[in-house]
């Protein structure tokens, strides 16, 4: 039982655990370390599933194992191996995995940031305007749709506001309005009858030529 250097994987010297400073490891690295009683506890051993008798209910995932608890979300019967205890509840692996949108969001290990994605969609073509301006007719409606679609999506376990959603929505709306105005201006200009150009001074008209 020992604590190993994170750089060289050799046991750390005892002096590294002293309160007053750093010690040099065998690898030559300076190190200061703090150890806690958990070092003596070791890795917890998982439970084994109990074999099922003929009259007993079986686990949904392991037909030969005895069911111990139902999943609190889907109700499937679970053996000791499949049971995931969370905050007083019992959950199966599938519900645990898909539960990021429900009350087990605080246990999620990964989250796609919909607000950042929307902001990227709305602001990307503006920031890279020289190259991506032609994408605005696609990205602006998409960003606006996604803002409404994902506005209430979970923001993750750490504090975070919905300001990116709002900014993305405003940017996408402005882009769409600009696009609409541009199209309206173009249509108006196309439909306006062009007046005949006035002859330049010194140029004779057709009538004069006929005479």
């Amino acid at each position, binding site marked *: *039982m*020992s*604590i*190993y*250097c*994170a*750089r060289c994987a050799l*046991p*750390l010297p*005892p*002096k*590294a*655990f*002293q*309160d007053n400073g*750093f010690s040099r490891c065998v690898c030559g*690295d*300076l*190190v*200061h*370390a*703090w*150890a*806690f*009683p*958990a*070092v*003596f*506890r*070791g*890795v917890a051993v998982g439970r084994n599933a109990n074999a099922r008798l003929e009259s007993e209910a079986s686990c949904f995932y392991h037909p030969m194992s005895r069911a111990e608890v139902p999943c609190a979300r889907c109700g499937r019967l679970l053996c000791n191996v499949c049971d995931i205890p969370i905050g007083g509840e019992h959950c199966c692996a599938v519900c645990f995995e898909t539960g990021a949108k429900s009350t087990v969001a605080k246990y*999620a*290990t*990964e*989250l*796609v*940031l919909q607000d*950042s*994605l929307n902001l*990227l969609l709305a602001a990307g073509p503006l920031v890279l305007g020289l190259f991506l301006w032609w994408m605005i007719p696609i990205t602006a409606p998409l960003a606006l749709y996604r803002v409404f679609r994902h506005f209430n999506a979970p923001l*993750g*376990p*750490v*504090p975070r506001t919905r300001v990116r959603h709002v900014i993305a929505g405003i940017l996408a709306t402005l882009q769409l309005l600009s696009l609409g105005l541009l199209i309206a201006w173009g249509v108006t200009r196309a439909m306006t009858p062009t007046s005949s150009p006035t002859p330049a001074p010194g140029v004779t008209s057709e009538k004069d030529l006929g005479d």
Partner: protein
Amino acid sequence: MYERLPGRGITMKGKSFLYVSDQHLLLLQENLVRQTYRRFAYSDIVSFQLHPNQRQRVALFGFGSVLVLFGVLIAVTPIEFKVVFAVLLALALVGFVMEILRGPRCRVWLSTAVGECELPSLGRVRLAERVLGRLISRVESAQGHLNPDQLRQLWPGRVGVQAP
């Protein structure tokens, strides 16, 4: 509810932050559109290791080289380029001074019974010691303190080891 700890690390995977809650430490890694979380219960943390390194000297050497380069360029280039290089020199000078003010760099590892994990947000010795002080008090309130007799058991093969 999480409380964010000071420090921000930038790695190949994106930005990294540390948060504390009542039961665990949360290591958050964030790239452009995705966050990844790793949780370490205070009762499972085996040790922290702080390794100071020489990266500050490397950074100072880099900033110093840039300062010298821009200084030379200011001296030899025509007046219209001097302004541009002066601005760049000022930026490099700010970086140089900030690097000195923020203190020496380090790497910090957390270990549990099943593995080790680097905490990239604790990249400066002064900051790391401050943050680890808070974390250690939380871990010790969950696990208790390791007494000298227990600490001596970590080196059973070494005779005469003095526990801290």
